[in-house]
């Protein structure tokens, strides 16, 4: 077994009882899947739980895995479905508050903090931070359908065809959603366009 083996080969090896193959898959995909989930649900604790659940589901389905299926498609389908279920559950429970922290980290601000203001961002670091927070907010404001496509395309660099398989819609629909997502982000960040252009 080599570290550069394809995901599908590693999965087949794992089916034959090679635990090391699964460890390699975990090392390879844990971080991107976690960040996908985190950007999707916007909450670290939930993201941790969903990450764990996603890989547990991979384990449960490992025996039935077939070599023809692309492993990342399968993995992100699981992660995406978990995220969708989670956000739907959450919608019923609570609504986002302007005073709620965007992130669980101590230094994360509230949505009120990132409302554009002429006095903000005196130095580059704070400008970047502000931009990122605004970006988080803009991404979170995307519709669920647009957000998942945007995250998979821009952050995971998945091709449209594979995104279409994950989401379960035609490829052209995915492209349309991506286009809408970009338009919306452009509008949301319009006030920052000069700052964004100046940002490194």
């Amino acid at each position, binding site marked *: 077994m080599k570290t550069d083996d394809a995901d599908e080969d590693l999965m087949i090896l*794992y*089916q*034959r*009882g*090679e*635990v090391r193959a*699964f*460890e390699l898959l*975990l090392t390879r995909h*844990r*971080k*991107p899947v*976690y*960040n996908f989930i*985190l950007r999707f649900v916007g909450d*670290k604790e939930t993201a*941790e739980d969903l*990450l*764990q659940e996603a*890989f*547990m589901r991979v*384990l*449960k389905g*490992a*025996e039935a895995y077939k070599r023809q299926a692309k492993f990342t498609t399968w993995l992100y389908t699981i992660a995406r479905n978990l995220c969708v279920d989670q956000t739907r559950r959450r919608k019923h429970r609570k609504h986002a508050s302007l005073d709620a922290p965007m992130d669980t980290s101590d230094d994360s601000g509230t949505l009120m903090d990132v409302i554009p203001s002429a006095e903000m961002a005196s130095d580059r670091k704070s400008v*970047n931070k502000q*931009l*990122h927070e605004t*970006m*988080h907010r803009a*991404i979170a404001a995307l*519709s669920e*359908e*647009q957000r998942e496509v945007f995250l998979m*395309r*821009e*952050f995971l660099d998945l091709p*449209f065809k594979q995104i279409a398989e994950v989401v379960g*819609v*035609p490829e*052209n*629909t*995915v*492209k*349309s*959603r*991506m*286009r*809408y997502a*970009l*338009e919306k*982000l*452009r509008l949301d*960040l319009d006030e920052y*366009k000069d700052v*964004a*252009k100046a*940002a*490194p």
Partner: protein
Amino acid sequence: MTPPVGSGNGVGGAPPDAEDAGRDADARGGDGDPELAAMRSVWLSMRDEEPPDRGLAELLAAARVQAEAMAPKPSWWHRLLAALRRPPLLALVTVLVLLGGAVLLGRRVGRDSAPAMHPPAPVVPTDGAAPAGPAVGSGSAAVRSVDPLPRVQADTGEAERSLDASRPSRPPRSPLPPAVHAAPRAEAPPPPPDVGLVARSGSADDTRALLIQQCDAAARRGDCPVVRRLVEQISQTDPGYRARVVQDAAFARCLE
């Protein structure tokens, strides 16, 4: 800026394929749009967070359990091989093999030396079976012994080989010691009994019985020259033999 087209959210009226190529380029590259490129640089500069190690141990433990459940079960001979690799069992098997080999070797040596120690067993004439065994060694006294193990041979081949063996053009016998001659009996077909030698050794009754048997076999397969020759030979010790057998149709054909 081109307005959004497509049917993804049920918005817009253009057919989905209308601007696929351009849309794809816009969506990913944004080459012609500096605004989009600037935005992309912002979100691409957002660092990925490291996932916490919480739950990793449980995940790996579950992976191990699942791997054991999925691992193909070894076949019985794999398990046998694995068991044989264990030192105590390996030692036991080695001892058993050595003992078995010693026993087999001992039996073979005993069997090989048996003809030399015991007198030849009497030949029991049976219909269709040649009781004579292979030659054991060479010499004048007791050079022929009957195989102690009963062996059934085809009549036809037996008699033929007997005659062939008595021919003068027969190649000389191997001067190998008795043990060497006796050893390959199990694998090689027995050499043809030498009629002449048989006649000279053993009791007269045994010889006659053997000749009668061979004559009978030759008569059944219609080998008249052999029948005539053997009848003559038997008649030397049993004058009434010809008169008895001539009543048999098979013999009558040859003797008339």
